[in-house]
């Protein structure tokens, strides 16, 4: 579904991604993990069109998409939840969700999808008319996820869904992500910690200093020492 080949991207003279290859197949949950400054957020920003890559190519459902703007990509079924719970704080929960469904014309289906996300995230139904800024951190993350679901994306990319959330709340968020994956949604998730990703991941990439240093299916990486070694940059033998 998504193929990233030898992608190079950066900020001015700083190259954050130095030739990254990543593949996401339909129905998978792919995790990209790595320490601070590894280029994880840059990766998602570039795929979603918020940044333009300086080299390499990105294909989404067979078509070249590098260099296209975020609005276009969003209409093609590529959704991104940026890092740090980007919700529209002074708008109500209802309006936040409406913005998510904005690109769609099929109003009857939007209504039934709206019911669906409100069933998935009951707290949002409770606070439907309230201002989004009054929600707690976990609720805001759920709202951000719900909003992007309403775009009916083929691929949903999430930048650090667990950032700044309490363990119990992270469980809820991961729980809802699993449910969404079971309905057929493909996920590409960036996380900083390797802790909780094993239960959900179909495949994992470890990114360090702008390069993929390890990739593998969940089964291949059950021995977490290799993962840790790649993450922290030891050679595997030493670890």
């Amino acid at each position, binding site marked *: 579904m998504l193929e990233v080949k030898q992608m190079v991207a950066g900020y001015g003279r700083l190259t954050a991604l130095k030739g990254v290859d990543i593949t996401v197949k339909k129905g998978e949950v792919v995790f990209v993990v790595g320490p601070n400054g590894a280029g994880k957020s840059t990766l998602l920003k570039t795929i979603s069109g918020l940044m333009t890559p300086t080299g390499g190519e990105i294909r989404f459902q067979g078509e070249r998409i590098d260099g296209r703007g975020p609005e276009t990509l969003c209409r093609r079924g590529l959704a991104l939840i940026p890092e740090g719970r*980007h919700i529209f704080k002074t708008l109500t929960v209802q309006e936040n969700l409406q913005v998510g469904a904005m690109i769609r014309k099929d109003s009857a289906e939007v209504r039934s999808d709206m019911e669906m996300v409100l069933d998935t995230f009951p707290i949002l139904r409770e606070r*439907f008319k309230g201002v989004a800024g009054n929600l707690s951190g976990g609720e805001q993350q759920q709202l951000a996820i719900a909003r992007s679901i309403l775009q009916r994306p083929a691929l949903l990319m999430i930048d650090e869904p667990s950032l700044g959330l309490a363990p119990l709340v992270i469980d809820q968020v991961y729980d809802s992500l699993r449910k969404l994956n079971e309905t057929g949604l493909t996920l590409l998730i960036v996380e900083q910690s390797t802790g909780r990703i094993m239960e959900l991941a179909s495949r994992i990439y470890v990114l360090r200093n702008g390069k993929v240093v390890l990739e593998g299916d969940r089964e291949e990486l059950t021995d977490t020492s290799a993962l840790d070694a790649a993450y922290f940059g030891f050679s595997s033998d030493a670890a």
Partner: protein
Amino acid sequence: MRIFERLFPVLALVIPLAGVVWTIDQFGSASVERVATEALIRLVFAIGLYIFAGNSGIVSFGHMTFCAIAAYATAWQTCCAMLKPITMSGLPAFIRDNTFPLLPAALTSIALAGVVAFTSGLILMRLSSLSASISTLALMFILNVIYSNWTTVTMGSSTIVGLPVYVTIWIALGCAVLVIVIAYLYQVSRWGLMLRAAREDEVAAQASGTSLYWSRLIAFTLSGFVAGLAGVLFAHFMGTVSIANFFLNHTFLIVAMLVIGGMQSLAGAVVGVTFISVVIELFRRAEVGFSVGSTQISIPAGSQELILAGIMLLILIFRKAGIMGGKELRWPWSVRDDGTVVGVGQVRLAHSADSHR
């Protein structure tokens, strides 16, 4: 009842305005009526500015440009048939030698303002927030320099006199109500919602499929039309047009009104304009002085401006989001988020009042 509830944010603004206007029309003196009419025209302009600035979060200092363009356009078409060929000899012949009916003149002038807003917006709306604000100011300076020096067409910095005066308090009210309705319909529309989302978070709005450029351009154009309407009303209320009236003084007065009322809601715009207009008028009268028995009491000249500045300072310190705090008035008997019905008599604001967590 639900329809009434949905329209409440508009009705709650329009009905009191109409009430005040009716009272003034019945019992007020001619001078009070003049002041109220001018305030209503300012309201039209302030709402025009709000359509763009309130929804996009980008303050525009340049909307007087569109006001001036429409005012001059209607002056060219309707003013002084005898003098026009001499004083404004540079006008195209068909405008110079003809006088046009009032309504078509008004409509074409408003359309011209809208077209100019769209054209300048094509460039300005590519800029990010602060640069866009400053560039609107630059736009106003450009227009000011051109119109002050284009002597054969605009009479330079002299005043064009002799426009037909047809704007009564009821016409001003009608226009104010019209633009309140337009502004409300826009802000709850798809494009208005997108723009408000972009105001809160550009990245997330883009990721939801919003084009920052187009959503801002649409608002800028619409607000240009409304500012144009205000320009036509000004021109046909005063009967005169002078470029000096469409410059910094007026711009900052109206920006101040929006800031004090609350930039981010329609109710804020209405409350701000009303409140400041009343304050200005009260202190202007106090400056002129009134007599108690045989003694004449007055406050020193210039205190009106000082008091206005003081009020603005207090608002900025204690209530940054303005008097209305960015909220619309909401139907007071509606069901709350938590399911309880709010008691009768309490006016609730559109957003729940809990402090931000």
